[in-house]
């Protein structure tokens, strides 16, 4: 048995219907899988929402998470992109104490990290940064000594690299597949 737990990233397409987020979250709670981050938002298709879920799991658990997600009727497509070439992004807004004496120092760091200042107040700056979780953690680390007043992060979103789309809607089987002719066999 392979017990190496690593952070897995799943991209999950779901039907854009009320309660679907609860179903997904409830599944992770019920099966005692620990969500590290979950984001949800619209996609190119109005009837489809897209989730990016990161979760600590060993390879067997990861397979079971995928299988359990598919058991939810409203889940359209699950892609474990953990080992795939992909782009991972997190966005953070960090309000940092930046009185006059240190302001230029903070701005220097913003520049190094290719972040940007989105709000300037007398005693503080609000910095927006987009990037991998590592990069954001890095900026946070160097800002901390100045005094982080408030911070918010979106959680991770992810997309495979390359041309191939994770076309959830095109993965939809034809309607005939749902014909209801199959009576339960009598034993």
């Amino acid at each position: 048995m392979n017990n190496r737990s690593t952070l897995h990233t799943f991209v999950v397409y779901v039907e854009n219907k009320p309660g679907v987020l609860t179903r997904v979250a409830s599944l992770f709670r019920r099966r005692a899988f620990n969500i590290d981050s979950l984001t949800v938002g619209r996609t190119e298709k109005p009837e489809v929402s897209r989730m990016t879920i990161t979760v600590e799991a060993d390879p067997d658990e990861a397979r079971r998470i995928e299988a359990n997600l598919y058991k939810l009727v409203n889940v359209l497509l699950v892609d474990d992109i953990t080992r795939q070439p992909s782009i991972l992004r997190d966005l953070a807004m960090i309000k940092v104490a930046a009185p006059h004496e240190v302001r230029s120092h903070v701005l220097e760091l913003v520049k190094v990290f290719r972040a940007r200042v989105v709000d300037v107040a007398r005693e503080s700056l609000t910095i927006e940064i987009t990037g991998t979780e590592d990069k954001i953690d890095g900026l946070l680390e160097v800002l901390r000594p100045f005094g982080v007043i408030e911070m918010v992060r979106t959680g991770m979103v992810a997309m495979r690299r390359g041309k191939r789309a994770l076309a959830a809607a095109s993965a939809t089987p034809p309607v005939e597949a749902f014909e209801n002719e199959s009576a339960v066999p009598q034993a």
Partner: protein
Amino acid sequence: MKMTGARILWECLEREGVEHVFGYPGGAILPAYDALKHSRIHHILARHEQGATHMADGYARASGRVGVAIATSGPGATNMVTGIATAMMDSSPIVCITGQVGGRLIGSDAFQETDITGVTLPITKHNSLVTRTADLARTIREAFYVARSGRPGPVLVDVTKDAQQGSCEFDWDAARPQLPGYRPDLSPAEAEYAQALELLHSAKRPVILAGQGVIAAGASAQLRELAERAQIPVALTLLGLGAMPAWHPLHLGMMGMHGEAWVNLAIQNADLLIALGMRFDDRVTGDKDSYARGARKIHVEIDPAEINKNVKVDVALVGDLSAVLRELLPRVEPADRGDWLDWINRQKGDAAVRDIQTLPDNGHLYAAHVVHDLWHETRGSETVVVTDVGQHQMWEAQYYKHDHPRSLITSGGLGTMGFALPAAIGAKTARSEAEVWVVAGDGGFQMTMAELATMVQENLNVRIAIINNGYLGMVRQWQEFFYERNYQATPLLSPDFVRLAEAYGIRALRVTERRQVAPAVRAAREHDGPMLLDFRVEQEDSVYPMVAAGAALDQMIRRPSPLVETAADE
């Protein structure tokens, strides 16, 4: 044609082939009940909504068709929860319909409002809230489709009162299921078949583990063919009993916590396990680390989420069991495994001597004897035994020899006491020609005995055997084995079941001696109407063998030898 939601509901049920529903009316479902007069469907009034869901469950398990339960909002819906969870754990296809307060009242804590789709989220295969009449037909069709396809399970549809009252154009064809994410029709790849066959052909000591999936897939004949062709003995889970005829030489018996010793020993010493439609529940594996350590494992299962969940397997064939066996069977080479079968047979050893069956009763009435005699009297006829949960359930599994699929109905996964009587009412409704017996303990029977009135009102000829030992017997047994006989809260006072039955107009007999058992069973079978038999059995008998929870499967507590000596002395 324009119809109200209430009419559409019944119309859809009829078109899904429903002939009976089990339910209990109330405010939020009244529009639906009002429209019942237009329907051919027969409504059976339960005495509690939990009973209605167990009835639907028993109906489904007895027939393979979808069972339907209906209730009002709030307490009506929450009373269904135990029945829904029972059906979920045992993959039983039922559709539960609940009324909900009007759409504009949702979220206002209105009278009898409960978020039942929220409550039942983790215990249904799927559920839906319908707030618009126009969505009702499609949702009902989807509910039936989801309940019976793939791995079956319960589906709940919550319908607001105004969705029942509103009207819309009814178009059955346009209301086709739209479930783009639901794909119950998986099948294995060729490479997986090849791997499975390779393991199968190289095995010296294989055992088939057959579960309820065999019955659900209608694959009993194929199971037998596989076993016979490759000469592989078959061990059964509790819910798998009946999948392989008990008289068959390759039928080993039940595995697991209260499985026969030689069955568990065969599993522990096997070099290949072929699991068919079972899920390696902790009650069948015992301690997982020491479970069948020398065995490769093939898992044929319709639900991919079961693969490697409890026990890691070498080959998984995910798909419909019957379709998989259809593909596999022609490629299975005949084999002779006389040595292995002999070895298993030798493991029976002194099991027969220790067996309560062969012990003299010394004037006592043992539950095992009751079950044996019940089997002996009813064998050969189309009998469905519906058991409750506890010691009697295990004795039934050990001593009633099931030869046919769907001849045993019992709550395995959830272990729901109170299941038997209502489930038997459902079973008898589905299969009126079958002889239906309830086997229940004095504890579980009291949980749902109000359904006796349902049985009488519906003229259902169900026969009831109460295994009455004055204790919550299985809990008492655990207290005896693991809690130093500290019998807290297990001695149980019961009403006089004979007089209770008579109050319902049901004939009843009390049985206190072995010699009265068979005549009592015969009397019940000859009586034209329901009958209750109150068997006053030995109070502190225990179910053997027993694998303690978490112990290795071959570490069994056997029936103590002093009894054997007593037997030998006489």
